[in-house]
């Protein structure tokens, strides 16, 4: 069964690029443009196998999204990866402290992206 991934990013280009990559690899992709929209999807029945979220977003950022998602009943153990840039070392640690499983470094593409997802998602 195809694994579902929720992608959260305010940049449409980034969403499009990551989405295309992952769909080609056989994942089912859901997207949200900010933390608020992502949280709304999670509370209205979406149960992805993995969440990939950007850090800096309007309305609700990635760190807050992780904290809020972890507090929801069905999302205690779900793998969550943050999307960071080369220079955001601090944000990665902050994400981990908030309950993220790991991070991806932009630009994420093809082989690397899949490799990392397979490392955190058994059965992917």
């Amino acid at each position, binding site marked *: 069964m195809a694994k579902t991934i929720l992608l959260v990013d305010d940049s449409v*280009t980034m969403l499009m*690029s990551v989405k*295309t990559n992952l769909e080609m690899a056989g994942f089912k992709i859901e997207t949200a443009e900010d933390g608020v929209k992502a949280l709304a999807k999670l509370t209205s029945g979406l149960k992805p196998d993995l969440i990939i979220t950007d850090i800096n977003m309007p309305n609700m950022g990635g760190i807050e999204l992780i904290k809020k998602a*972890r507090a929801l009943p069905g999302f205690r*153990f779900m793998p969550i990866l943050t999307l960071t840039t080369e220079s955001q070392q601090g944000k990665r640690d902050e994400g981990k402290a908030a*309950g993220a499983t*790991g991070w991806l470094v932009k630009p994420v593409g*093809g082989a*690397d992206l899949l490799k990392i997802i397979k490392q*955190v998602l058994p059965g992917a």
Partner: protein
Amino acid sequence: MNNLLEQFLSEARDFLQGIGEKLMQLENDPDSTELMVELFRFVHTLKGNSGLFDFPEMTRVLHASEDLMDAVRNGRVNYSQTLADQLLEAMDFVGSLMDEIEVTGKIGSNHLVISTELTKALRALLDTPDAVNVPVAIEVYTEDALTVKGISWSELPIMDLPETIAMGLHRCSIDGETVLWLQYTPEPECFFKGEDPFFLARQIPDVAWRHVILNNSASTLAEMDVFSSQLVFQLLTIAPETELDDLLRYVPDQIHRVKIPALAFVKPSGSSTDQAIDDDVIDSVLALFDNDEIDALIHTINTMLELSSPELWSSSALRWVLHLIDAEPDNKPAQRILLEAFRTQTAPDWSVLTPPIVPQHKTVSAPIHVNTSEIPDTLLRDFNVVINTQKEILSLPATSSGAWSAGRLKAVGATLIGCYRAVQRPHEIEGIEAALNIALTQNSPVPLLGWLETSLANTQELIFKGEPEPVVASLAAQPEVKFGRRTDDARGENAVAASKTLKVDQDKIDRLMNLIGEMVVAKNALPYLANRAETVFGVRELSREIKAQYAVINRVAEEMQDTIMQVRMMPVSFIFQRFPRMVRDISRKLGKEVELVLEGDATEADKNIIEALSDPLIHIVRNSLDHGLEMPEARLAAGKSVTGKLHIRASQESDRVLIEIIDDGKGINPEVIKHKAYEKGLIDEATLERISDQDAVNLVFAAGFSTADVISDLSGRGVGMDVVRSAVEKVNGTVGIESVAGKGTRLFMSLPLSMAVTNVMIIESNKQIFGVPMDLVVETVRVPRVQIRTIKQKQTTVLRGRIVPLLSLNDLLARNEAQLPNEDDEFATLIVRVHGEHVGILVDDFRETVDIILKPMTGILGGLPGYSGAALLGDGSVLMVLNPRELI
């Protein structure tokens, strides 16, 4: 093409152009930091963008370019002409990949090699003597560091390592591989971060030994907190540290790792006895050792081993002595300590050896002074080539404007400085700089040329006296010299060749192929026509003229056909190129270590053959990885190197392509195959008894046979080698297998170079004609009715003392008609070879053999078994070509 890719391509073209321009500007202004920084930014962004797509060949080259530009930007590597050339060449390559992506949407075959070469060349520039400032590798794991961390390798819990594995690891370590002891203690709350420590631990590659500990504090089971991690994973791995860093990057603080020195594995184990070895014996052994009588020592130890039980501690110690003598012949102190340990029957104390125990890491350091005699010949030759080229450049006439450009002079100067630095003559640099300055003020090459000639005269030892490199394009021979573009000099020939190459859509080639097929058919109608001219119309003269004309057309058509065949030829690299990645991914997934060797990837065959080869080959390679090559532990235990070897070789043998897939894995056990085949009812009991090992191994090709003891998701379920065989046979190929249990397996496929023209025999049955491929026909005979016997309701005949089963074609085609005999009551019988056996097919009559262009049947007809395809005959009729393999 998707929008993202389109966006990438158009942006990337701008970057490429920008990179080219900046490089050109740098020629004239090599010291501009501003240009350097901009250049770096272009390359960096381009690399980043390419990473969004799966274009590994492109990204790899860009990555190397980026690293190189980074080094230049930081002053670690000097900008030079060579460097600019190399970068431009790399960008040309990237540009050509983009052309291809634009047309086909992806990167095709054949780029892997060039991309690797370019990357290597770019990386090589990073390591030139110019790069002396590169930080020297620092030995991280010193004994001190370990003591500070509070753990010494001698205290690690690796006591229970089986002796064979310990010996294997010791040898790995001696051979320069790093053996790491790794302890992973996940934080208790890690499950609440979406982590699965066990899954992570399982992904650690090349594990030779592993252990899991549970630190459960709860007193009863019910109290256990299942969502708080209480696990500790411990293991020994020989995986490269960079790979481990990458895998464990999210949990670095939970990892403790220690590099294990080779001697730590030398640890005899076993039961000790009360009666220790006599001191006399030990003394005599030590005497042999001290007198360096190693052969006698080995002999004595072997004798002692024969006399004592192998389970004893002392036997284990003796085996270790032999191992040590073999693996570390020069490490006398260690050998002596091990021998001394016999007195006490306790583990050898390596701590006395501490300094030499820790393997010395090679440190990079630039030699301060080097004799020219130490400069390798290749370097000296390159030096001479470059210097001579500079001389030629300096001797060139001034440009049309009458002046020498400053940039050209500076470039020559920079090159000369680089050259002299490369041959350890830094003191010459001052002279070059002085000459360059004069040259620049005079706007003339003469001062530099003068310096160069004087210098060369004074340094005879730098003149290369060996054979010059054969391919060096002479600059003087070219009317005008442009700088920067390598394509204009050394690669000139290639560039011309490239412009002569035409990319043609595959469909067009296929269309051409169909047309020539029709042409051959139409041409074959001419002899009919000539015949009719003579017999029907009685014009003999015209008949002769038609025949003469036919001969001409025939020759041209044949030549044309040959040429089109040539166009259709494709190198096997088309399939081979996907293997490195595939092998890497699969072996990683399986936790195996595999070295892939590809040979003969330039071997060519018809496009259809290459395409037909692809799936079987992938299947076979997967099989080898999955079932052939063992896990690293198993290999160690079997006394093999940890890394399995997978060899894929293509070669041409007369008009066939031979593909071999060889692994040094566990091989196929004929006994297992026999019994499995028997269990599955593929062979009867009698066959089970007398079948030879080779025949047994061949049973893997039998339909419905799956060799896997463990069915994994890689090779699939139930799909076995029989699929491979039928796919190969479909294109008139053969496949075979040889295997030695424990040593490995060799699988080979032989395929025709081209499948375009098929020689078939036309036969007649039930008032219709059919074709049968000639390569299956052994002979044609006429069998008298009286010689046909019925054995067990099957018709047979005896042919040259051999019983041949007979089948009637009408029966095979489900026509309810008897075959027609000739006037002498004989049946026309086609003896064909099917799966190594001779079978007779009864038909009504034989006709001639013809060359046809066989077209596979498509659509509904494509599903018909028993036919290879159809062809048009000279008179316009359709010939159905039978496939006896499927028919019988």
